[in-house]
């Protein structure tokens, strides 16, 4: 049995390995599909839905859908671009995202998607939810105001750090990331060297005392849109 399949993305043929998801195949081929909860090396989550494409006409998340021989994928269409933009705007109004004082600004993937999509302002009313900040840990800050519930910290802690420091509690709009033991991060075995801290795409999990070190203009997304590395065929 062949280990390679051919699929098309927006009309261009690419070769993919059997067992790859659409997003993995696209990344390897230098085609960027916008995403937030997907992170190479982690189990697919399929929660943010930003990577939604159509495969043979049906919408699916590119991070969970395996490639199939001859699959026809639509990615960069006007409709999907609009949908994704709407989705990213919804994330901005769902939480409390104060970019102007956030340590992650310039390196934040949510913000970078906003830039790439040319979002000047979300078109929905801001919800201003009441959320907690947990500064109990000596080296790590948890700011739920910025959390987009992508589960990258949960999966990284479980599968990379082997700790399972985090999990979700609550449901719907009340869903949030909670800590393994009790309520405070300080009471857990989380350490600043955990990969989970780095895994956060936004400023919800931060290392203390190292913020704002990169000057404005030299930060990751100041000049290069998110996804450029993939489009340029660089390792990410």
């Amino acid at each position, binding site marked *: 049995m062949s280990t390679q399949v051919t699929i098309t993305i927006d009309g261009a043929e690419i070769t993919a390995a059997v067992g790859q998801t659409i997003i993995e195949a696209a990344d390897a081929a230098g085609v960027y599909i916008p995403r937030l909860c997907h992170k190479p090396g982690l189990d697919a989550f399929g929660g943010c839905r930003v990577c939604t494409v159509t495969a043979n006409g049906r*919408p699916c998340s590119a991070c969970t859908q395996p490639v199939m021989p001859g699959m026809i994928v639509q990615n960069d269409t006007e409709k999907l671009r609009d*949908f994704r933009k709407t989705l990213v705007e*919804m994330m901005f109004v769902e939480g409390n995202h104060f970019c102007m004082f956030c340590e992650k600004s310039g390196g934040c993937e949510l913000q970078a998607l906003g830039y790439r999509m040319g979002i000047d302002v979300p078109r929905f009313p801001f919800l201003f939810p009441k959320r907690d900040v947990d500064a109990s840990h000596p080296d790590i800050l948890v700011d739920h105001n910025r959390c987009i519930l992508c589960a990258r910290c949960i999966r990284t802690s479980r599968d990379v750090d082997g700790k399972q420091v985090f999990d979700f*509690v609550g449901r719907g709009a009340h869903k949030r990331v909670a*800590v393994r033991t009790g309520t405070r991060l300080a009471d857990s075995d989380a350490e600043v060297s955990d990969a989970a801290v780095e895994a956060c795409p936004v400023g919800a999990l931060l290392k203390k005392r190292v913020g704002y070190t990169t000057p404005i203009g030299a930060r990751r997304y100041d000049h290069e849109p998110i996804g450029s590395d993939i489009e340029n065929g660089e390792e990410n």
Partner: protein
Amino acid sequence: MRAEIHPMSTLLDSAVRKICKSFDNDPTRLLDVARAVQEKYRCVSDEAVDVIAQVLHLPRVTVESLVSFYAFLSREKQGRVIIRLCDDVIDRMHGYDRVLAVFREELGIEVGETTSDGNITLERTACIGMSDQAPAALINDVVVTRLNSDRAREIVRELREHMDPNRLVRTYGRGNNAHDLVRSMVHNNIQTEPLVLLSAINRCGAIRKALSLRPVEVIRAVKAARLRGRGGAGFPCGMKWEFTRAADGEQKVVICNADEGEPGTFKDRILLTEYPDRVFAGMTIAGYAIGAQEGILYLRAEYAYLRAFLEDVLQKRREDGLLGDGILGRDDVSFDIRIQMGAGAYVCGEETALISSCEGTRGDPKNRPPFPAQHGYLGRPTSVNNVETLCCVTKIMEEGAAAFSQYGTKQSSGTKLLSISGDCRRPGVYELPFGTTLREVLALCDADDAIAVQVGGPSGQMVGPEHYDRQICFDDLATGGSIMTFGPGRDLLEVVSGFLEFFEDESCGYCTPCRVGTVLLKEAVDRVRADLCEPLDIERFEEMGTMMKAMSRCGLGQTAPNPVLSTLENFPALYAGCNKVDSDGYRRSFDLEASLSEARAIRGGHPEAATNGKGGPQ
């Protein structure tokens, strides 16, 4: 103090350990453990969470995660009696507000609170499957129906006297509602003559027939009858079984989805009350057909009052050789069924969420692929079928595919059970052939003057009189069974808002479109109702609804915008007020007076200040 606390903790510790042990310390039975702890201690406390986590070898947060997901589990201690008032659109139409007001007044508490003596908790809950006898409530597991202010007052008085919800039931409904193990005031309200599903029970004919065939022949018969899933989506049942049968895996599983949570649906209640043998026979036949020995009936928490009765039916079937090892004397055929109780989560009606719940986790839907037929319950190939679908299977075996498919249309064969509620004189369950028009349905239930009908519950669509000649079937007006009728004078936008509130409450929160979209849509519709919307707002939330349909991860989010989208299409007049634009370019959604209310209240002591309406320093 320490000396007093210590023995208590030890008691809790050993009791919780005992509960865990009764489920073999199996972490996949966490939901059952949590339910049992909740029942015993009226909450799953910090201490209990610690013990459970320790015994089942789970991180503490995993236990918290599960407890926080289900509406019927609680971290805070609840009253000895919990009154869960069904807060559904239909109940609201029949006096929910008045009943709620009486409960609040008599108990002296708000929704979500417990009386100071720790005795009674007042909660609101989504549809409990009693829309034909609304307003209704669950008092612990006891169903009380047709509430009104007087009855609510009496209930509080009686509960204060004896604290025994069972004693609130004075007369029993007909049939098995009066069974010793049910003793419920629930009425069946079967409104049509039996056709197929509501016909007399034949306890073993179907299984005998199935066992006389080879499994593939059973599947062939189901396909010949063109049976499609009755939950709403209409996936061909035979095909689902074929996939499950063909999947790799030693152990396979049949799950019966008895989590009918779509507001306005209550037809499975009748099947479970009066025809449980038909349901269990269907599961057994499914097991034989796909090669499964394990069956699970996932029973929604709201139907807990049927549990003891259903367990008894299962036991009798085991005794009669219809379940267990060597069914009907065939050594090669084994199948047994356990009942998995839910704990209050609409999303668990979605088949992959239901599987998550059976596995003892949060009821989050799973990513697909893999589909349950390949990788379902605990990774085993699994067929999840609706209660009604399985009853159809039993009838197909009993009477043959041809007899079954003589009813209905080519694409939608057989009959359909409809749960009809709302503004009609004969609410209840109707068995009608697929293809029946909505007009015929409305005539039968005596709702000819309906200005609108919600077909398929909140996740379905709202249609008006110009659609009444359409047919109930998979290819036209599809429904899992819910039909709600709205008579002249009803505020349809209030209905839409109620449906959206339901989705907002029930979204699992896993994916962004549903988690955020349900909140924003509800907010937008309430602005429409307050006459504060502009054309642009409508455009935006229509766009968001379309996005949610395409990008949500499961059926809940994909259908949650339907109340808005279907009324925008079928009842555009409801949104006519949104055509207004302020000539000065002021946003109509911004209400200056309302947004000054808090400041005015704070400045309240100074009347001179309060009159200084507009303006400021010039």
